[in-house]
């Protein structure tokens, strides 16, 4: 039965259902229980934003607080994954990637290939991404392109609670290392979510809005900006298709090609910095594979090549807006 659920609660429910289903699923992270060893409440936080609240009461010591040592515990989750467990590790913010990246890209990502196909590393690393929290340069980044670049990692970045639940369940069941990116500005966003467990396969983009004049490709929060832009453009008689990539590695380019072959126009929206971004990657593939389908030069709408600023007025300018997306669509329509 479907009922309205927030993105945050959908993540919680996915973890809960998988921990109930599979005894080898464990979870670890900084403050994911919260208060371990402290004089007050044992299950005080349930994650820094309360995403895992209540899971300790149900699953006990299968949820483990960790010391502030991302290299050690992300690595331990990866090691445990090769030894029969199916761990979920929370890297509080993907911005902390630099502290523990070696364990992710030199270890987890490469075991299967380096070891000639003999290893499986079924680990899920959940991390908050994205801006809008006034959290400044080290807690707001969209670092998805960096991890998408790495062969051996899978990268997921849902735009809504329904996809978050189904994709997180798939991530936990998946036998490869998955980086599951949760946009913190979507945590409160609610949609209908079934109570029962379901998995959404990787590599299947979702057409968030159908349209015939131009194709807007986005993921995460940017799907909402793209859809807002599309609704506004519809008032001017411009009918946009919005494609939500949902997973960045693997990536469903077939759905993008099919749409661009029909519309002839491509706009890629990415909250990441512009160089070597998901937007530039999608644009390059479309240009190489179906160049003759294009009626106009593809347009990229991204954050600027700067760190994320603190001051709200600056951060609002930093994150791509629906207006910028609409302007980019109009630019493609002019030719």
């Amino acid at each position: 039965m479907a009922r309205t659920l927030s993105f945050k609660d959908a993540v919680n429910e996915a973890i809960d259902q998988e921990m109930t289903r599979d005894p080898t699923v464990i979870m670890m992270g900084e403050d994911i229980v919260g208060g371990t060893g402290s004089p007050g409440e044992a299950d005080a936080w349930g994650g820094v934003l309360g995403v895992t609240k209540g899971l300790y009461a149900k699953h006990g010591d299968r949820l483990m607080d960790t010391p502030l040592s991302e290299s050690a515990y992300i690595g331990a989750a990866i090691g445990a994954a090769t030894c029969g467990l199916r761990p979920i590790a929370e890297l509080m913010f993907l911005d902390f990637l630099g502290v523990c990246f070696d364990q992710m890209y030199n270890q987890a990502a490469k075991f299967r290939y380096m070891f000639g196909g003999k290893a499986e590393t079924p680990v899920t690393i959940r991390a908050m991404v994205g801006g809008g929290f006034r959290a400044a340069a080290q807690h707001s980044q969209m670092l998805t392109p960096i991890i998408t670049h790495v062969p051996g990692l899978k990268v997921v970045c849902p735009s809504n609670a329904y996809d978050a639940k189904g994709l997180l369940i798939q991530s936990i069941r998946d036998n490869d290392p998955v980086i599951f990116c949760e946009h913190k500005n979507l945590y409160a966003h609610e949609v209908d979510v079934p109570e029962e467990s379901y998995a959404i396969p990787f590599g299947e983009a979702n057409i968030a809005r159908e349209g015939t004049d131009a194709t807007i490709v986005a993921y995460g929060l940017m799907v909402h900006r793209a859809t807002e832009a599309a609704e506004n453009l519809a008032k001017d008689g411009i009918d946009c298709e919005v494609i939500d990539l949902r997973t960045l590695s693997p990536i469903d380019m077939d759905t993008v090609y099919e749409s661009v072959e029909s519309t002839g126009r491509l706009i890629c929206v990415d909250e990441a910095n512009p160089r070597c971004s998901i937007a530039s990657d999608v644009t390059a593939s479309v240009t190489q594979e179906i160049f003759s389908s294009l009626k106009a030069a593809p347009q990229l709408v991204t954050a600027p090549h700067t760190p994320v600023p603190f001051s709200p007025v600056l951060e609002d300018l930093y994150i791509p807006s629906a207006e910028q997306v609409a302007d980019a669509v109009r630019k493609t329509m002019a030719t």
Partner: protein
Amino acid sequence: MSKNPFPLSKDDLLIAYRMMKTIREFEERLHVDFGRGEIPGFVHLYAGEEASAVGIMMHLNDQDQIASNHRGHGHCIAKGVDVKEMMAEIYGKVSGSCRGKGGSMHIADLSKGMMGANGILGAGSPLACGAGLAAQKLGHNGIGMSFTGDGASNQGTFLESLNLAAVWNLPVIFVVENNGYAESTSVDWAVAVDSYVDRAAGFGLPGVTVDGTEFFAVYEAAGELIKRAREGGGPSLLECKMIRFFGHFEGDAQTYKAEGENEYNRKHHDCLKIFRAHVTKAGVLSDEELDAIDTQVLALIDAAVEEAISAPLPTADDLTTDVYVSY
């Protein structure tokens, strides 16, 4: 033959000697063949350090997982990885342990409890914590073991892992193989404490230092720490002070070493000679028995090299396989 004064049966002593000799000859042969330009890439040889790997690994079974490092051949052989497949791997052949995709620095066989050699120094320590955590959560009696050198024990990953293992009371043992040199840099300069036991104490862990050229010293110290870990006593650190006969990597001119250092060590601190002296003096094993093993090991290494040379190379199809389980 006299009564056996050692903590291992005669059969186990023969196994231990064969293992150490296999490592030695594997490395001696690689030294020669690498010098001839027959081996691609680079190799880091374990010769001189055999008593550490074997003295420890004699206590382990396939359920126990070890995370090794760049100098991993000895750990692999002692943990039971197939020697011929290892040689083929180092030659980049499809019959290798990793189908020619890993090479010397990435030999692994999880079914044998070998989580992988590792090209990133210190990276194995968190992985070994994961192995210990898996054993703890799955309720089996296995342990995790991390092998680092004196150099990598300065890495944050190693130090964080000491704390994590202590906080979670994991069945993990951190082996510091102290051969005196981090690549070319002296341990006396690069490690601020005088003893790794002091470093372990700083993290609330018990630590033991042994002469890593003495097989029996390693065997007994490791046995106690491993027993403790299996019984839920938690993590510990074992420092083996040892000798590296070759350079950091093959091709290293070793000008940072003292003049005559390698020759002196080979003469006076060769763990294989020391082992042989102990067991023959006690009258438990004879020179003839050990010589027979020497002959068999040399034949094995010769066969491993011959088979590696004649084995097929990977093909273009192999380039893109086994990146993911499914994609």
